[in-house]
């Protein structure tokens, strides 16, 4: 708690951009609300649509963190492709349209203390270790830096990830096709 208190005192120190902080807070509140809806809603399709809100919020946070290329990729890959896959998965498994009272385990309440414990440990470590670290105000990241990274020091991982994607695509087709 002392960490939180000193965090509020620090607002107003040099290097803190108030407008950015306000934007961050609003987007973060929306994201947390939407994430809670994802894990508590009784309707599978509504869960997928709330997940779109969370993923869009994450993309907005990437913009605040000066990572435009990652933000655009997030929108393209997650909101564009992954959500379509999820909606297809929901349709093909014939989920109930409308509320479904059978979406949780019998022992679902056990998840609450586990999640709270995890949040407590993570929050303590973060506040204890990085209390005074300020995110510098940086301009946009030039995409040429990213491409230099991919085609320079990270060329081998880049090729490896291409093979992983190819293998995953072929594997998904082999698993899901009807014989």
């Amino acid at each position, binding site marked *: 708690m002392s*960490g939180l208190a000193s965090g509020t005192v620090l607002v107003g120190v040099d290097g803190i951009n108030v407008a950015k*902080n306000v934007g961050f807070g609003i987007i*973060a509140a929306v*994201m*947390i609300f939407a*994430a*809670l809806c*994802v*894990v508590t809603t009784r309707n*599978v399709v509504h*869960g997928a649509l709330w*997940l779109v809100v*969370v993923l869009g919020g*994450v993309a907005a*946070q*990437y913009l*605040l*963190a*000066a*990572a435009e*290329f*990652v933000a655009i*990729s*997030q929108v393209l*890959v*997650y909101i564009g492709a*992954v959500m379509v*896959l*999820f909606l297809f*998965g929901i349709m093909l*498994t*014939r*989920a109930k349209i409308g509320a479904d009272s*059978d979406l*949780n*385990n019998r022992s*679902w309440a056990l*998840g*609450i203390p*586990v999640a709270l414990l*995890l*949040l407590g440990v*993570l929050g303590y470590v973060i*506040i204890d270790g990085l*209390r005074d*670290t300020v*995110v510098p105000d940086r301009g946009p*990241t030039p995409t040429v830096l*990213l491409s230099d*990274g*991919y085609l320079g020091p990270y060329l081998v991982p880049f090729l490896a*990830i291409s093979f*992983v*994607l190819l293998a*995953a*695509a072929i*594997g*998904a087709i082999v*698993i*899901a096709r009807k014989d």
Partner: protein
Amino acid sequence: MLAVNFLLLSAVLFSIGVYGVLARRNAVMVLMSVELVLNAVVLNLVAFAVINGSVDGQIFALFAIAIAAAEVGVGLAMVLLVYRNRRSIALDELSEMRG
């Protein structure tokens, strides 16, 4: 902006995702919760990239996004296979291998 802003938001998203994985019974909902967890981790990568002024974190974030896309494809294919064989994707009914 303080670094703890990003990291605490990411920790909250991670915990919510873990709760979803533990509490949900529908396999598609579990995969959605896994997406929450993955996004929390990638948000951390991007936050550390901007804190350290290095582009490596963003490069790793894009790697993680690609892996997550592959994971969803294979995961949903497996869910479809389970549904086709059993007419249900309730995870607590998949207990044939229990000793």
